[in-house]
């Protein structure tokens, strides 16, 4: 199965594919970057949680979010490039406690995008809706993924980082 990973952080962009491939061998994971340099260097999409989202949002979705949604649909329609699409963003500190609003905002952006599609091809909307339901999942990392690694010294080993790649653990009073 071909699975697209649409991520908003470098850590996820460079690490998630290998991690998921190790956990689910036989599946074809690939990252969709925001951009790729001619040298092949990938950059991730921008997070849409970098500024606190108000509970009631009236304006157009943030452009970063629109990009995420556009990239998601682009993997599936009109050409089916992937069987599944995982969208992964993490909750920045400014949105602490605002998880539900963030998730709702992703759904709202999808709805707005479907309205745009309706304006150009109303017959495609239903099938795209069905494809999105069947094939897309949105994952919000709370707290943000880096915090698992940096706030918990044992995080890397829990995340199965090989022993020889772990940073040395220093102990106060013993190591200088």
């Amino acid at each position, binding site marked *: 199965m071909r699975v697209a990973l649409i991520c908003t952080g470098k850590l996820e962009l460079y690490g998630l594919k290998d991690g998921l491939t190790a956990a689910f061998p036989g599946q074809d994971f690939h990252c969709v970057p925001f951009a790729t340099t001619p040298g092949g260097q990938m950059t991730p999409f921008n997070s849409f949680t970098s500024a606190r989202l108000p509970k009631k949002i009236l304006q157009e979705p943030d452009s970063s979010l629109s990009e995420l949604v556009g990239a998601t649909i*682009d993997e599936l329609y009109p050409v089916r490039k992937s069987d599944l699409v995982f969208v992964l963003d993490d909750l920045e500190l400014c949105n602490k406690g605002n998880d539900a609003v963030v998730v709702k905002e992703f759904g709202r952006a999808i709805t707005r995008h479907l309205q745009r599609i309706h304006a150009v091809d109303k017959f495609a909307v239903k099938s795209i809706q069905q494809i999105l339901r069947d094939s897309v999942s949105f994952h919000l990392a709370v707290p943000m993924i880096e915090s698992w690694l940096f706030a918990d010294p044992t995080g890397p080993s829990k995340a199965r980082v090989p022993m020889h790649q772990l940073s040395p653990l220093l102990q106060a009073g013993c190591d200088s």
Partner: protein
Amino acid sequence: MIAPDFTLLARDFRVLRAVEWRPEPGVCLLTGPNGSGKTTVLSALKFLRGLFAFGHERSLGFIKGVHLRRRDALPESPVHFELHIGDVHWTLDFPVDARGLVSNYGETLTHGDEVFLRAAMFQQEWFYRGQPRRFDDRRCCARFAWDHEEPEWMTPMVRFLESIRIYDAYRLDLIRQPTQEDQRRGYLHPTGANLWTVLNTWQSSPRLYGDRFAWVVEAMRLAFPDVVGELEFEGTTPHGLIFPPHANNPDDGLPALLEADGVLTGFLHLTAVAGAAPGSIIAFDEMENQLHPFAIRSLLNSMRTRAEEQGLTILLTTHSPVLMNAFEERPDQIYVMEPGQEKLPVALSEIRDPVWFTNFALGRRYERGDFGAPITPSE
């Protein structure tokens, strides 16, 4: 005024394998990778115009007439052009090698089903209304026929050819320091060298040239709102003095010598458009060069308005995402030198589903390499 409805075909011309292009009226974009042949498509139009106006020798000079044939074309295949306007069809075949034309070229002009004139490649005579004639003239056969009897049905083709203007080589150095006056006053020279002469003439002769000067200055104010207020000419200076908005002091006039490249480019684009006769075709190679995104959008808006009023077809080759984003509503007016397509350029709306256009802005699509992208070694 109705924009010209024409189809250009070319085969094995420089990097172009097969061209078939019928651009929509109004402002159109032509985009694609570097080296894909955008400028060469414009060269084909320039060559046909020059061929009809001046004959093949001068016209080949306009397009640096060597290496005319596509590198991978069969050695015996000619460089082929066709121009269709209504029921008039002009066909040309040029036998060439790497150094240029090797013998007499082939030419056919038909009106409906009637073959009006015909010349075969390598031959010493050609047929005009079925009668043989010797090649004794530098003019192309179609021009000979036009000069000879001006058939009414040729008029749309002649008007079309004479109206073509290709702007692909502005010389800002000449515009900053004009040393000699160009005699042409009605329209802009391809290098732009006569910019100030043209504008000065338009300003001083409104009955002859109508609103052209006023239109250029107003469009410049919109594109460069903090720089351009008025354009004036002083008797002793061959170039314009550009006054910022609300300037009252005569010393506030900035000579063109000191003006920003982008401002001069704006004057050139607008003067070229204003000088185009109704129903003309006018092309700019990489129109966005030197321009701020605001100016690009503003100049485009002015061009669109003028094109609609005057029935112009304005062709812009570009790599600018800013320009592409301004065509979100008209993807049928974006043409792409898309690798792998049988005939080029191809309208973006023909090769992409309408839903595809909703997912990203077109400029972003271009940046992502979703269309008009170069072929990378891994592909």
